[in-house]
Structure formats: C-alpha cells, structure tokens
C-alpha cells in the first residue's frame, strides 16, 4: 500500500518535472550522478580506522614516585587514559602525547604510577577530509 502510494507520487513528480530534451544534458547528468556515487563509495571504502600497539612498559609515571612503594601486593585499579588530536585534511592540530594519557589515567584513579602498561595508537581518518588520532594508555594504577 505504502509502496504503491510512493510510486504514484514519484510518477506525478516525473510528470510535472520539465522534460530534458537535450540527450547530451541527460548523458552529462547520468555521468555526474555516476561519478558522485563512485566518489561516495570510494570515501566510504577509504574511511579507515586503524589501531596498533606501540609499546609495553612494566612501570611508567609522570609523577615523582618511590619505586619501593610499587610492590605487586599493593592494591591496583585498571585505568585508561587518552590523548587525542584532530587531523584536518592532512594537517594535525598538534601531536598526541602519551605522557598526557598516562597523567589522565593517574588523575582518574588517584594512582602514583601505572604498571603493566600498554601504549596503543588509534586513528580514524577519511582521507583528505578529517580524522582523529589518539594515544590510548592502559594499565594498573597503584
């Protein structure tokens, strides 16, 4: 029922639209639409996300910490910190900083240092349009 009414609407619109008598204009329009469709498909295909690990550390801290207090028996809380930047066209607004990501993770948990640290790098990017790149740090805050 719905489909029939939509088709009827479309037919009415086609009947009222000014006819394009120039076959070259029709061809141009078809070519333009096809190019636009291909471009949209390409952008969708190229909009890529990528993650990778760029290091594993046993201990890391942005605070002056006493290493003797970081025994494995001290209580730990899993913490995650991120430092992200924007990529406009191909230009980054600044550089991400994994020191900031560690500081954020420590701030969130009130820890002095992170142990069993994984440093990851993530990027989501539509080529030549926009993207976001981040350092993601996770570990046990003590």
């Amino acid at each position, binding site marked *: 029922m719905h489909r029939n009414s939509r088709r009827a609407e479309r037919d009415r619109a086609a009947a009222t639209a000014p006819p394009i008598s120039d076959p070259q204009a029709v061809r141009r329009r078809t070519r333009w639409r096809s190019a636009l469709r291909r471009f949209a498909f390409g952008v969708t295909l190229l909009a890529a996300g990528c993650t990778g690990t760029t290091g594993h550390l046993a201990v890391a*801290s942005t605070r002056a910490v006493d290493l003797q207090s970081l025994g494995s028996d001290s209580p730990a809380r899993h913490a995650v910190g991120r430092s992200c930047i924007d990529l406009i066209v191909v230009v980054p607004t600044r550089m991400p900083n994994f020191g900031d990501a560690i500081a954020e993770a420590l701030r969130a948990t009130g820890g002095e240092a992170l142990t069993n640290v994984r440093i990851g790098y993530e990027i989501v990017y539509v080529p030549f349009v926009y993207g976001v790149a981040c350092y993601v740090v996770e570990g046990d805050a003590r």
Partner: protein
Amino acid sequence: MNARRASILLLAGTFGCSVNVASLQVVAPHALSAGVAHTAVYRGWGDGESCRFWILAEFGLPQVDEATDNALRPLHGAFMRDAAVYSVHPVYGFFGWHCYRVVGEVFG
C-alpha cells in the same frame, strides 16, 4: 638546468621533524626485581631509539619499550628517571623512518 631542478626537488622533499610525545618521571620496560629499587644507583645518561621504515605506508610501529631497552642496555640499567620520549620522522620524499627516541637518566 635539469640537475638544478632535481636537486631543488630533492631538497624540498627531504625534511623531518621531532616532537616530544611524553615526559616521564619513571619508566621501566621490564618488571623490577625486589632489590633494585633499594640498591639502584645513577649510571649515566641514556639514549635509545626504535625505528620502522616506511615507503608510502608504514611497516609496523616503532616500540617505546624497545627504545627504552636500547637506552638502558649500554649502561646495564633497569629503569630511567626524567625520561623524554620523542617521535622522530626523517622523511625523504616517498620513504622515511618513524622512530621513538628515549633519553633520560639511567639507574640500575
């Protein structure tokens, strides 16, 4: 004339940058043994790198722990204090390297 143009292009395409990506008070790539924290002494200034080659696309990511290991190894250190980590990008047109460089005080 062509040689001059080629050298200008080569110079224009050869560049690089180095940016600080972390300033850490303490960093250790491996778990510290129980006694190290008590007995560690200053061993000197460490400097290490981890690099990956790229041509149009990158062949893997450089590793911070590898760079820290390379800074500690010559001094037989266990951990670093006041360490700075740099992301270094020497670029030669369509190829180059992406490196992490770690510098700081080595203890062990």
